[in-house]
Each structure stands twice: as C-alpha cells, then as structure tokens.
C-alpha cells in the first residue's frame, strides 16, 4: 500500500530547516562583535578605546594650502593612486560682486587639483577682484550619528568607543552603500582592496600615542588633534575650543560631526 505523506509533516520539516537557518545569524553576529573590537582596529594590545575620545579641530584661517597633509596621508596609509583621498584641501575663491549687481559677493569658485597634494595653481581670478580666498582641509567628519555606519549591511564599518569611525576591510563586502550615504564625500571604494576606505585618524598611530600624519606634518598647526578624556587642564584642543566659535559641515543633516572648524564660510559644504 502506498503511503501518503501529509502537508503537516512536510511543513514541519520545512519549519525545522528555517529555524536552524535563523539561529545562525545570532551566533555569527556575536562572533562579529568580538572581531570588530579586537581584530580590526590594528591597535596596540594595551590600548583601551573606552579611555579616549578623539577630536579633530581645524583652524581654516591658519591653513596655507600647502597640501603636505594630503600627501602625508597618502604615504602613511598607502592610499591608492588616482582620485582617492582620505584627506584633501579645498580652495575657495569668492570674488567681489560686480558693481551695482545688488549682490554681496560673486560666484564662488572651488577647486582641489590632486586633492591639493601638490599645492594650488595661480588663482584664475585677478587678485584685486577677490574678496575672500581660503583653504579648507577636509577629512572624515567623525560623525556621532554616522550615516555610513547606519547603512552598512554587514556592520563592517563601526563606531569605535574612542570616537573613530573604522572599517573592517576583512569584512566589508564592497557594496558601496556607505560611500553613497556619506554626505561629505570622505569615502571611496579602493581599487586595490575592493572595499570601502576612509580616514581612520591614523588609528595605528594614535593608539600608540602619536598624532595622525596630517596633524604631525601641518606646518601652521591648522589641524589640532586631541583627546577629550585627557585629564590635563590645558590641552591644545581645549584651548582651541575655548578660544574659537566653532562650526561643523552640513549641520542640517543631523550627523553631529566631531571635526570642528573655526573660521568657516557659508559657502563651504
């Protein structure tokens, strides 16, 4: 006699397979959390990320656009050749308005040849026509509410407890969602590793008590880097913070960047 299977049995078997498949992610997630903390940071063994809160401040008035920071960053971090930058310098040239135009200023020109690595060519606008001209160093904005971290589908990019936003390149699937989500254009897909890359604040250096390469090389100290949890009463970062009114880039997006600028202009985005 032929045995007839019923649907209940078939569905129970299917349910068993599904339940098995659903428990896997939890186990993998726990493993990933541990991996993130210990493997990906490249930090020293005795470095405790919970005892630091890194902050970067930039004094736009001090930047001379020499581009040493962008060059140092490329060399220090092995950033690929081509249009890929972890930090770069933008030059803003705001011309005087045409007489009688009823405007406060002319149309702003922005440029950044080679990320500003080799300095800037002569201004395309005659000097007597320029109202303001300044340089703005850019880097990862270390957002407190990072859109890039929020959208990463596998959690390969994450907020370290010390404020750095890092990427586990062994885990990144290279989907590019974080690059799309970053409002500041700070991320790129590395043509070498095929994973997302960005400024890590030179994590391998700061966890060893050194400054990021860009800060170290800046001849005018336009970049000020420090630790908010540093107990010393007079740190450069605290001094800067007290002496300047600071601004952040694209505040309306609610990302709460922790790269603070002094002397920004409304044209800077």
């Amino acid at each position, binding site marked *: 006699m032929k045995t007839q299977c019923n649907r209940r049995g078939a569905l129970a078997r299917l349910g068993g397979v599904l339940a098995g498949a659903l428990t896997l992610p939890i186990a993998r997630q726990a493993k990933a959390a541990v991996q993130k903390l210990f493997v990906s940071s490249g930090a020293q063994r005795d470095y405790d990320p919970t005892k630091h809160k890194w902050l970067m401040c930039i004094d736009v008035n001090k930047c001379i656009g020499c581009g040493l920071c962008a060059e140092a960053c490329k060399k220090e971090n092995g950033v690929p050749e081509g249009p890929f930058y972890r930090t770069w310098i933008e030059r803003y040239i705001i011309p005087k308005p045409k007489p009688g135009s009823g405007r406060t200023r002319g149309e702003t020109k*922005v440029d950044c040849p080679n990320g500003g690595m080799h300095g800037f060519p002569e201004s395309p606008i005659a000097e007597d026509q320029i109202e303001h001209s300044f340089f703005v160093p850019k880097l990862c904005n270390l957002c407190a509410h990072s859109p890039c971290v929020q*959208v990463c589908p596998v959690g390969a990019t994450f907020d370290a407890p010390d404020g750095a936003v890092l990427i586990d390149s062994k885990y990144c699937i290279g989907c590019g969602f974080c690059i799309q989500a970053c409002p500041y254009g700070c991320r790129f897909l590395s043509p070498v590793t095929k994973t997302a890359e960005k400024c890590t604040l030179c994590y391998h250096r700061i966890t060893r008590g050194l400054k990021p390469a860009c800060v170290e090389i800046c001849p005018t100290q336009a970049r000020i880097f420090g630790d908010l949890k540093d107990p010393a009463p007079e740190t450069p970062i605290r001094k800067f913070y007290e002496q300047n009114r600071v601004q952040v880039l694209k505040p309306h997006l609610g990302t709460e960047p922790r790269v603070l600028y002094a002397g920004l202009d409304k044209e800077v985005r």
Partner: protein
Amino acid sequence: MTNELTNVVVEVLPKFEGYVYPNEATAHPLWGFLIVLYPYITGLVAGAFIMASLVRVFKVKALEPVYRLSLLTALAFLLCAPLPLLFHLGHPERCYEIMMTPHMTSPMAIFGFVYAWYLTAVLLLELWFDYRQDLVHWSNTTAGFKGIVYRAFTVGVTDESPEAVALDMKIGRVLSIVGIPSAFLLHGYVGFIFGSVKANPWWGNALMPIIFILSAIASGIALCIFNAMVLTWIRRHTVDMRCLDTMAMFLFYALVVDAAVEGLDWIHRAYAAEEGFSVMQTMIREKLFYTLNLGQATVGTLLPLLLLGSLQLLRKRAPELVRRRMIFGSAVMILIGVLAMRWNVVIGGQLFSKSLRGVMGYKLEFAGVEGWFMGIILLSLPFVILTVLVKLFLSERLPTSGHMPHSSSAA
C-alpha cells in the same frame, strides 16, 4: 615620471563640470547599470505578483487565464533579482555575510530576509499549493525526466482527496493575502534603500518607497500583458480580449496613481526648492534630459496614459486589432519608461556632487560587468527561465485540474 603620467591620465579620464569632491571624480559612478536593473527586476516581481493577487484575493475572474503565468513570471524574475546586486559587489564571495551577520539598521541588510521570505514563504509556497493537485496528476501520467521533475515537486505529498484540495486552495488564498504586503515590503524597501540616503537630495525622500511600489505595480502588470500576448502569439492562439481589456484597465489605474504620486513628488521638490534644487534643475535640463523627459515622462507615462485612457472611453467602439496593438504598445512603453525611471533615480543620483557645486558625466559602456551587454544578458535571463517554467508548468499538452484560484471560499 610614470607616476606623474598616471596621475595625468587619471585626472583626464573623469568628466565633470564645476567642483566635485575629489573622491567623486571617478570615471564611473559607484553604482552603475547593474544597480539600475536591480530595482527594475525586483519591481517587475512585485508587480507580477500583485497581478496574480487580483485573481486570488480580489477574485477578478476575467484575469484567471493569466494567473499562473503571472506567478511564474514573478518567480522567474525573482530568481534573477539578486544577480545584479551580487555582481556589483567588491567582494561577492562575502555576500552571505548579509544574512549571517546582518546589521539591522541598514536597509540593505534586510534584503536577504525579505528576499528569502518572499521566495520561499510566499511565492514558492503559493505556487506549490496551487499546482499540487496537478503535480500529482502529471507525476503519474508523465514519463521520463519531466515525470521525475513533477514527482520531485510533489515533495512526496500525494493526497488528492477533495478536502485536501479545498485546503490547498484555502492556504493558497491566505498566502496570497500575506503576499500582497510582502510584495509591497519587497519593493518598498528597495525604494527605502535610496529614500533613506539623506546625503543625496535626489534620493533622500519619504515618497521614494511609495513611488517605487507604484511604478513596480505598473511595470509588473505591463510585463504580464507583454508575456501573455507574446505567449498567445507563439502558440498561435487568439487573444482572450476580456482578459486583455481587464489587464489594460488595471494597468491604466496603476499608471494613474503612479503618475499622480510621481507628479506630487516633483511639485513638492519644485515648490520647496531646497538646497539641492538648482543642481536638480541642471540634471533635468541637461544630464537626464532624454531619459527623464522623453523616457520616463513621455514614453513611460504620458503616451500610455493617453492610449490606455482613451481605451477606457472607447473600449467597445475600437476594433479588437487596434485595442490589442494599443495595449501591447502601452505595455512596452511602460516597461521602457520604468527602466528609464530606475536609471534616472540610480544614475541621476550619482551625476552630481554632494558638494552641490558640480556635475559628473556617465557613458554606458558595452563591455565589462557594468556594461550594457551584461545588462542585456541579465534582462534576458528571466525570460529564459520563464520559458523553461512555461514549458514545464504551463504546457498545453498537460491537462490541468481546472480549479479556480479565486473560488477557495466556495470550496
């Protein structure tokens, strides 16, 4: 020297005007043609399923002849939906991480679950319950490889009692009811992937998921019309005009709602004229002139609205041949228009800098993973799969049980 030369070459390749962030000055946008196809194919799945639900849930009897074809269309396209995503990844071999260690705040991470849910819990189950009785029959009457396939698909369940068949229909209907929000979820979340990017004023928009769902429904119904008419033509049958007219009616309604919401989106953007509006104007006037004004608005929306709308008024007066041609033409135009819409969203959102000071250029290449040759292959693949599915499960030679998918409550 070599380094300098490389730098110069790299500098020359990308084409852009104004100022773009240095990391944006790449030769190609990060998400290319493959990512255009991804929401397009997913939308066709959702739309085809909604089309099938009209029979199963809303009991539109006139659409019964295309019920199974719609479900098989949805399945064929769903099987291909993850391929463009997979191919575009920097590390496709790590793709399983999306399901193993999903980051729950990411809209993309939900893809694996929504996809698995939709494929296994909705579409395959609904198809299985609908086909179960036929599969048992066919496995007994068909010899050779096909017979083995049918036998395998019965999963050993051979109960054909009237109670069992009635239960099949009941479960099928429940699955179809669950399937409608699932289809909305599947495609709505694809819209959310773009709508949630607040960094990009072209994408970051609460209406984006709704627009994606509505355009998906229109494109899915258009695809079902296309498939049904082509299949009838291949089989040298006469078209069931009652069915075709009903499909055209639903297509018209779907298109009206879609066009209204998309219009609302544009009115809102123009009226609010927020920070990125001037760069958007440049996009509409220059960068996306043909695909947006011609492809999406004229070919994809206005002309089909005109044709299908006039059919609603003149249905009885227009000769059958004219109606058939108008409906087929509208379906093809909508399919092209929705593809253009996906292009405008995906590529359009990457043709301007997030500094809102410059625009980039993009020329679709022939070769390469993101080339249009690959795109054609990926778009043809679902049709190849559908052909196999139709040969296996919609064959003219096989007798069907003839149960009505909409008559579950009566059963």
